[in-house]
């Protein structure tokens, strides 16, 4: 069975690649969408939170072990570093919100947006200054030889991305839908004043939202770092694309961010092979999708025509 003259095994290969890319976009997109859901603004420093989280994980990883040696100790060190990166990112996210966004909560909507872009530029340059602009290799904690099945193959890192992505997304969804704090988050996103009147400490909920979003970004950052590298601008393009994924799915909608991310990952992969967009123009796919969505369905795929709240 050949679809668009592409053999089935190649299609499966592209599907795997698209899904892993999409899972990473989804993880980052969740941070944008959660913050937007509560504060109605785009945290443009999200990519830099990802980058700094990844750096902190990177440094701890290489301090604890020598990944080239392999073995179970390396895997434990990797897990510890991942957790550390999540914690650092979470703290960073909360701190940025407190310093740069909270004082502007009553200001016009453009003000926190500009503040976010400012924070993003500062953090990126700070990272270049402190860590250097040269990209650093992040070694796999395990043997990353591809596993072949049929003519397609999957790398252990891709499996990890899919598994970790799935676990994170399912647990986030359960947390938001079922738990008490999740309920408080939904209440806060619908109406902060009324949430406060229910005894909910809105400031803590906002901090919690930033913490969760940032921690997920750190996970995505480390997953990216192993495929590519660690460098001060690594959060930029990944952040922008995840932002597009969030808009495509319907910003403010958690399921939307997951769907949007996966969709974008698949579109980027299949856009190259099926439509034949040159590899060098791959990044234009995401932005074209953004333009089309904004023209056709600005509220995003998963949100029914939303009225602006008065």
């Amino acid at each position, binding site marked *: 069975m050949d679809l668009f003259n592409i053999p089935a095994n190649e299609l499966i290969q592209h599907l795997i690649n698209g899904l892993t890319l999409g899972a990473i976009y989804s993880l980052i997109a969740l941070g944008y969408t959660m913050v937007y859901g509560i504060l109605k603004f785009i945290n443009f420093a999200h990519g830099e939170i990802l980058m700094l989280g990844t750096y902190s994980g990177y440094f701890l990883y290489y301090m604890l072990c020598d990944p080239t040696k392999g073995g179970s100790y390396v895997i434990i060190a990797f897990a510890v570093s991942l957790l550390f990166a999540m914690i650092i990112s979470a703290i960073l996210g909360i701190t940025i919100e407190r310093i740069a966004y909270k004082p502007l909560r009553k200001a016009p909507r453009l003000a926190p947006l500009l503040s976010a872009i400012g924070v993003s530029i500062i953090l990126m340059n700070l990272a270049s200054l402190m860590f250097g602009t040269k990209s650093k290799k992040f070694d796999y904690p395990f043997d990353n030889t591809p596993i072949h099945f049929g003519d397609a193959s999957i790398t252990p890192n891709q499996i990890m991305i899919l598994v970790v992505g799935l676990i994170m997304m399912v647990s986030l969804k359960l947390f938001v839908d079922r738990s*008490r704090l999740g*309920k*408080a988050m*939904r*209440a806060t996103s*619908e*109406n902060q*004043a*009324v949430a*406060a*009147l*229910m*005894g*909910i*400490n*809105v400031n803590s909920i906002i901090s919690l939202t930033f913490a969760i979003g940032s921690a997920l970004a750190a996970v995505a950052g480390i997953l990216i770092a192993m495929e590519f590298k660690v460098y001060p601008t690594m959060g930029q393009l990944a952040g922008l694309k995840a932002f597009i994924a969030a808009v495509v799915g319907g910003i403010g909608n958690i399921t939307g961010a997951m769907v949007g991310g996966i969709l974008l990952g698949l579109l980027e992969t299949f856009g190259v092979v099926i439509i034949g967009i040159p590899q060098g123009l791959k990044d234009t796919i995401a932005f074209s999708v953004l333009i089309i969505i904004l023209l056709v369905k600005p509220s995003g795929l998963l949100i029914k025509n939303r009225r602006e709240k008065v």
Partner: protein
Amino acid sequence: MPLLYTKNLRREFGGVIAVSDVNFEVMKNSITGLIGPNGAGKTTLFNNITGLDFPTKGNVFFKGEDITELPAYKITRIGIARTFQNIRLFREMTVFENVMIGRHFRGNHPKLSRNRLVNFALGMVNLKMEEKDIYENSIKWLDFFNLLPFRDEYAKNLPYGRQRELEIARALATEPDLLFLDEPAAGMNPQETEELMATIRKIRDLGVTVVLIEHDMKLVMNICDTITVLNYGQKIAEGTPGQIQNNKDVIEAYLGKSDD
């Protein structure tokens, strides 16, 4: 001593004085009415008491304590709840969730320590007990308003009158000692208003002190023990319904001055 009182409460917005040095008193177990023409500052006064807005000058005292500076969530936790003139439910949540959330963060379970960390240390037994308490209480308040059949509906899908009731149920789920109702009868037909009056009395009989803003004079005169009248941000009268109905200043504020 009154359950709640304000001392020279003043709220200015730029040059506009919305509430001007008002001393407002609410006696325990009473139903107190707050009336006045549109723009008299009634809702502003509510907002300043419930922590959604803060006075320019003056203080609010509840159970003898100064609560002027407390944020809204803390005011809820010490026992003040409110509803809004324009209904503000969590529209994307179910009826049951709306009521449950009122209880979740109250943190006043008699058998539990107020300290969440201690709760965790004591283990899941207490958490389960708390969950059970939340569940049972939410059911209780839904039942009080006959909302049980709508339990799993989204709040936004309820008919208007039902939404008003749900908002009161949600406020009561925080177990308040004092409940502020902002125009509870707005948009209701005479029969619904009649039912609402009975409900408000029932709430008072449960030991909850009620303060209400209302334009429906029949309702106000019928159920209020005392009435405070605001006009242009100032308190112009205070007394029983009988006294208010015959008060010259009040009649003037509502109908204008007669020439003779």
